[in-house]
């Protein structure tokens, strides 16, 4: 079923390319739309079953689906894909944002439509693979598969400095993923030393990293790959360029799902594979997270370019995930995963809005904007909604995420939490200045602009409803994540942490 999902996505990608030669103007996008809808329909019964609590027990009750066949038996490489609650949520997020990305590029992409949708779907397929692969080699394979289409998306359909941005993105992610490959091979070699045969399986390598004499360096390989992807300070610098230059759909996919693969890697692989590192490395991890939160907030405020501003806010928000992961308790982890989902929606929406504005007034420079509210009231009100979401107004999902992360991390480190809470003030500053510069003030352009049309409105509505639901009734999501995170927390030597509610 998961394999089927991946096949559907890859086939859809190939079909979209072929459709170019059959109906160049609307063929590819229709194929892309149909593919994503099919994929969502495939996932729906699973999601529904899960919501009912009827877990398809494959291994134990955390894994909903698990598919396994040997691939390269000589090296113990398998086709091992599985999903649990966390992967399910992230895959659903990927597919929904994929649909929104298709909606966003519906009119924006005119040239080489077929190749565009091929790349878009290829990237989505790669991301779905990353979220479901449990064989480290397979994981690496999908990790690479998702990179290359994004390179093309930026380099071909991007804006003025697209080549620079695309190359930068590629070099950063490629160099860091090579480090990860070394670490993966190191782990497999370790397994061979211990057991006499190679294995890349997540289940067999669990916790093994800490037994290696070089565990710190192996861990660092993974850590840097995920840090670059997340991105965390100081590896974040590819992100503003990539986001700014990418076409709208590219930005949506980048911000919405690609960044989440880094966070997912941290939770799924890094800490389970190297349980000790959670204890020894936690102060560093949390410090990097806090640095990212504050640094991103200050830089976001300094930007003139609308998309660059939003890109820096992403860096700030990703800092919360890092903080939550290294706090490593039930509250903080719930918060971190929740942040992945809510940031996926809020950042994607903001990028879509930025793209819509650029499509209409042909600039991203906020100094050239201002006073757009009366012309595009619907767009302005919706932007306000998402800006408020991203600055963490309670009632929307982002608040739940940040609140949980901070509550959880406060149990572990007061200093880090207090500093990170400073990011809440920073968020207010950069978000409001954005609203001020774009929508408030005197009108800067005299020509009339088109407000959101039905296609854009419906995309926005989906994301608004999702954020509202996550903000007002997040319990289903929390319940879905609970067994996964409990299992993960069990893997670890628990921190010498005070049990909440029991004070001596």
């Amino acid at each position, binding site marked *: 079923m998961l394999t089927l999902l991946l096949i559907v996505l890859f086939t859809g990608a190939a079909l979209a390319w072929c459709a170019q030669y059959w109906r160049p103007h609307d063929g590819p996008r229709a194929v892309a739309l149909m593919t994503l809808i099919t994929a969502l329909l495939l996932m729906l019964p699973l999601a529904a079953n899960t919501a009912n609590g009827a877990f398809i027990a494959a291994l134990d009750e955390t894994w909903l689906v698990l598919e396994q066949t040997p691939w390269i038996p000589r090296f113990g490489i398998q086709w091992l894909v599985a999903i649990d609650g966390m992967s399910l949520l992230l895959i659903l997020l990927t597919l929904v944002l994929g649909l929104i990305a298709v909606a966003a590029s519906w009119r924006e992409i005119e040239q080489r439509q077929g190749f565009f949708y091929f790349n878009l779907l290829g990237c989505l397929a790669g991301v779905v693979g990353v979220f479901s692969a449990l064989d480290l080699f397979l994981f690496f394979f999908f990790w690479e598969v998702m990179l290359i289409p994004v390179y093309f998306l930026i380099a071909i359909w991007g804006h003025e400095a697209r080549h620079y941005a695309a190359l930068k993105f590629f070099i950063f992610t490629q160099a860091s993923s090579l480090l990860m490959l070394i670490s993966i091979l190191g782990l497999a070699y370790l397994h061979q030393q211990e057991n006499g045969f190679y294995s890349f399986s997540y289940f067999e390598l669990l916790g093994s990293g800490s037994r290696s004499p070089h565990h710190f360096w192996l861990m660092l390989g993974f850590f840097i790959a995920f840090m670059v992807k997340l991105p965390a300070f*100081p590896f974040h610098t590819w992100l503003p360029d990539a986001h700014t230059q990418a076409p709208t759909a590219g930005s949506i996919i980048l911000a919405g799902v690609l960044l989440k693969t880094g966070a997912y890697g941290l939770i799924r692989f890094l800490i389970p594979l190297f349980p000790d590192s959670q204890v020894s490395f936690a102060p560093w991890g949390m410090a990097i997270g806090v640095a990212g939160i504050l640094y991103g907030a*200050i830089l976001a405020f300094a930007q003139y370019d609308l998309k660059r501003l939003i890109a820096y806010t992403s860096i700030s928000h990703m800092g919360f995930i890092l903080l939550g992961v290294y706090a490593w308790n039930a509250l903080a982890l719930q918060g971190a995963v929740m942040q992945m989902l809510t940031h996926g929606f809020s950042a994607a929406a903001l990028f879509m809005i930025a793209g819509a504005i650029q499509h209409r007034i042909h600039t991203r420079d906020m100094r050239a904007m201002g006073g757009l509210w009366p012309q595009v009231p619907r767009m302005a009100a919706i932007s306000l909604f998402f800006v408020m979401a991203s600055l963490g107004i*309670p009632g929307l999902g982002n608040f739940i995420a940040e609140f949980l992360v901070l509550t959880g991390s406060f149990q572990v480190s007061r200093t880090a939490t207090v500093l990170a809470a400073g990011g809440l003030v920073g968020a207010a500053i950069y978000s409001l200045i954005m609203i001020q510069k774009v929508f408030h003030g*005197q009108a800067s352009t005299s020509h009339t602009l088109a407000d959101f049309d039905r296609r854009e409105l419906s995309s926005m509505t989906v994301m608004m409803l999702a954020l509202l639901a996550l903000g007002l009734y997040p*319990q289903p999501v929390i319940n879905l994540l609970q067994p996964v995170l409990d299992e993960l927390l069990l893997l670890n030597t628990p921190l010498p942490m005070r049990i909440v509610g029991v*004070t001596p």
Partner: protein
Amino acid sequence: MLSLLWLIPTLPMLSSLLLMLGAGRFTRHTSALLGVGSVGLSALIAFAIALSFDTTTVYQHTLWQWFSVGALTPNIAFYLDGLSLVMMLVVTGVGFLIHLYASGYMYNDPDYSRFFASMNLFLAAMLILVLADNLVLLYLGWEGVGLCSYLLIGFWYKDPANGQAARKAFVMTRVGDTAMAIGLFLLFRELGTLNIAELMTAASTRWPEGSPTATLAALLLLGGAVGKSAQLPLQSWLPDAMAGPTPVSALIHAATMVTAGVYLIARHHALFLLSPLAMDSVALVGLITLLIAGFSALVQTDIKRILAYSTMSQIGYMFLALGVGAWSAAIFHLVIHALFKALLFLSAGSIILALQHKQEISEMGGLSRHMPFIFGCFLIGSACLAALPFTSGYFSKEPILIQAWLQSPMLWFGGLLGALITALYSFRLIFVVFFGPLHTEPSGLKLPAVVALRMPLALSILALLSLLGGFLDLPLATVLPTTSGHPPLLIEAINTLVPLFGVLACYSLYHRNPALRQRLIQLPGSQALRRFWLNGWGADHLYDLLFRRPFLWMARINQADIADSLSRGITQLSRYSHLLLVEVQSGQIRWYASIMAIGVAFFIGLGVLT
């Protein structure tokens, strides 16, 4: 009846949603009906509940479980006791009257429905704040009112100054909110719950008096309270917040939102009682704020800014009351202040409307003959504000001063000085605006008669309530600790006479003997002092220097992202080494050949020599 409690915040919320989704497609009439009607209905339900509710009990209503992770299990649940009942009545009652007034005041504004959408959303958030049964939900309301305050201060968004004021308000209160959030984390870590009632029991059983953790938690909550209530050191946003429409100033920045800090402290009185240091800080914050705001109000020239500083100063009284343990007196003053300050703001709004949006008091004057009704309302409001005997303000301020005396004569003296200043600035306003020569001719309003009637109606009800408010008996005895003790009669007499003296002084300075005022103005240093007070004791400049400029500087120097220099450095390095090596590739065959020959010769030489 009690089961309808959840409708009280829900009705304005729904109406706000409808107005937003309507996106300006409703007629003015429908917008007003939705906006005012929903609040009116809420107020009706609130009053019905008040009649049937036994205030010695507590009513809890859980709508649904919000989320539950580990021990953190906040619900969307409401909690009704005497305190929240009083707050709910103030918010819905005064809120309704202000909405009624606003439906006339804003009638000619093109964004009529956006205005009511924001106002209703505000009321919903405020009601959630006062009714919340746990701190997370309270925080939702707390941030919600901040958001609406931002939206409404910047309601006329075309002027960048309004946007600036709105952002300032939001960011400054956010600083306080963040402190409060940290307080929440601390309370949760130490006590393992965020349900307010459970927290208070746990705090008083687990922590001894004077426990440092309790002090820290109380001070962090105080941080939230000073932000929202515009107290020192986060006070300077309130005067700028007057950029919003006048009904907004009346509702948010006088009657309800800014008093949320007082409610927060009163709600957590058990925690504050554990920490003498926190109590002293509350009292001191209140005292200093009431004095500096009072002095600033003395010299302001914009009618709304005078009222804003006076709000700050009156909330200072409430904090003083909280700090000296006069809990009920603080809430009583909150209620009375909401009534008369709303009255004052709305009357000021009527003046501003009649004078074509002029707000400088130097351009007003002699209005008592032209606007006798407004004059009456303003007089009632000012009398209450100055706490003249037998007005409601007298009844609410008196217990504060008495309790301050019992606590420490120093606090009492400060409060008394504040009372004198209050009388001075409130009657200065009366004399300058309503007496003397006429500067601007008031014009009639271009409103349909039905709409125009709403404003005097709201004003008269508020005036009546302000007059009679002193006889209210709030059902707080079961919620808040009571105080006892009687000061000497002399003290009470001084408390009563000082405001009267202030009014007299004002009368002689501004009406009877302006020459005396001229002499005062010409005293050396008085101009500098005036400017200093006019700018709110330089708080803006100080914060500009301490926070805003360093932040802007940091943002500016690092606009290009210094962390990028590593990757840029690598690019540069490879580019330079390329330039260096490219020289070797000259394209000249003889160059290659000679290098080759030299190389061969070199190695042969090497081979021969060794």
